């Protein structure tokens, strides 16, 4: 698939922008702070309904404007789809697909699929577990949009359960009153059910990623390997073998919840479940976080993204590949190998401050970005 048109209104630095894109490679060049990343970020937003740079929507709206609009036309085989998003901070976003409003923005997920490489990706290796959980969950949603619902159900149960734990623990400390545990049982049940579904999907995904990551890493560098992925569940702390089927996982979560309960009541927060898990990245059997060199960490991060790309591609359709300012972070050898890898994608969008950073085979159609304008060279 590829994006054929992108139109922005009051998005970040753009009052308005319109560009036509083609399959193959397009490069956006221009000095820093001119809005290159904003363009690719907007395309990423259409695919994931989130920015890779910020957790909230407020910064996406141009200062002084009330809402931002992103419109993208996507071509997939001989099908065309038009996705329009209206981003209003503090309120629910609105979405239209082929000019008809959809009841929930979530329903446009899957129309456009992207794999985005960005300088922030280093956090996949060196950052908190949350970064790696997000990587897995976003890939799940990209492959099967239904998981956006699974994820939001889980988060909702978690919120309700945390609210209950908080009030129960407050009551316990203030009045030494035994909390009413019968409703907690109910939320445990729902947390285990929703958690097991998410957990089972993550485990299956990790198993699929494993060989792809090993292969991609080996092609990027010969140092540090081989890489291995270990999913660490907060419900099974001692690296025990995790069952694959949902009923067994729900049982595991139920057990962990009842074990953690006294502590949870004391601290007023849910301490076990997929929201506390980690995907441990190992290199030559040592945790990459802490042991990997800068170069190895970058290779690992790239290998994870490339594996995501391979998975989506294997599902039958090339996702749009976005390389946001990553070449500046890499040495010449890694640049070349990455370029080799991604060249074959149906559409590649590259942003760079210094045109010389982009390997020659990846230049393609050049757009010059400056002062809130985008011009094709």
């Amino acid at each position, binding site marked *: 698939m590829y994006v054929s048109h992108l139109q922005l209104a009051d998005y970040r630095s753009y009052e308005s922008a319109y560009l036509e894109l083609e399959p193959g490679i397009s490069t956006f060049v221009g000095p820093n702070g001119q809005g290159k990343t904003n363009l690719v970020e907007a395309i990423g937003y259409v695919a994931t309904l989130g920015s890779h740079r910020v957790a909230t929507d407020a910064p996406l709206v141009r200062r002084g404007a009330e809402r931002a609009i992103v419109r993208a036309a996507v071509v997939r085989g001989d099908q065309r789809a038009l996705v329009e998003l209206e981003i209003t901070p503090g309120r629910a976003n609105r979405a239209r697909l082929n000019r008809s409003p959809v009841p929930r923005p979530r329903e446009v997920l899957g129309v456009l699929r992207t794999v985005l490489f960005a300088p922030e990706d280093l956090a996949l290796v060196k950052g908190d577990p949350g970064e790696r959980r997000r990587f897995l969950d976003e890939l799940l949603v990209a492959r099967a949009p*239904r998981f956006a*619902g699974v994820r939001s159900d889980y988060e909702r149960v978690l919120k*309700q359960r945390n*609210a209950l734990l908080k*009030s129960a623990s407050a009551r316990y400390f203030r009045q030494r009153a035994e909390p009413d545990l*019968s409703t907690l049982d*109910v*939320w445990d*049940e*729902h947390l285990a059910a929703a958690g097991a579904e998410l957990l089972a999907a993550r485990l299956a995904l990790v198993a699929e990623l494993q060989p792809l990551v090993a292969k991609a890493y080996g092609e990027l560098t010969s140092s540090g390997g081989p890489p291995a992925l270990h999913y660490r569940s907060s419900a099974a702390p001692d690296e025990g073998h995790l069952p694959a089927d949902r009923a067994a996982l729900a049982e595991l979560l139920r057990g962990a919840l009842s074990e953690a309960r006294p502590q949870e009541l004391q601290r007023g927060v849910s301490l076990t479940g997929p929201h506390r898990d980690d995907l441990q990245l190992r290199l030559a059997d040592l945790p990459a976080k802490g042991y990997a060199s800068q170069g190895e960490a970058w290779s690992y991060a790239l290998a994870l993204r490339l594996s995501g790309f391979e998975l989506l591609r294997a599902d039958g359709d090339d996702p749009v590949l976005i390389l946001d300012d990553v070449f500046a972070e890499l040495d010449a050898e890694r640049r070349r190998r990455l370029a080799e890898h991604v060249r074959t994608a149906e559409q590649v969008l590259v942003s760079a401050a210094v045109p010389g950073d982009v390997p020659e085979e990846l230049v393609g159609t050049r757009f010059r970005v400056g002062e809130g304008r985008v011009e094709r060279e």
Partner: protein
Amino acid sequence: MYEGAVQNLIDELGRLPGVGPKSAQRIAFHLLAAETADVKRLVHALVEVKERVRFCSVCGNVAEEEQCRICRDPRRDAAVICVVEESKDVVAIERTREFRGRYHVLGGAISPIEGVGPDDLRIRELMARLSDGQITELILATDPNLEGEATATYLARLVKPMGLKVTRLASGLPVGGDLEYADEVTLGRAFEGRRSLEL
């Protein structure tokens, strides 16, 4: 901002559910332009609803007497109780004319975020109704969202020792709809709840 009384009215209207600032303003000016008699009638209706309407002492539905129309009706099956969140759900189910039992209105669903626990709902009253042994089936018709499901699970656990039949409304596909337009969750539920065709 408008002067005193007008702004006051807009603010009051704006506090109603589903009424935003723009709608509040439109309604306020509509009232301002309306005949005094029409406005008086609206005021009367508002006051009357607060003075006359109360909640049925048995089921918690809105009523004009001690008990609501359904609880007073001797033809309704006293052995089956359908539990709903709000009075408006009673109206929705009544429209189907499928159900001949009685209701129990909880007054909401369990939601810790909003500070609503079992004690804030009419669950104690429900338990009292169930204890007389006349009731054989409890239908849980809370909303099919997370809070409604949690409330249903809670009730099911609570009444389990009493040994009555507890059922939950099925979720599934809308009648007259197209399969391809159903969202995945609904379709998944419909699969789970599929039944065999008896010919």
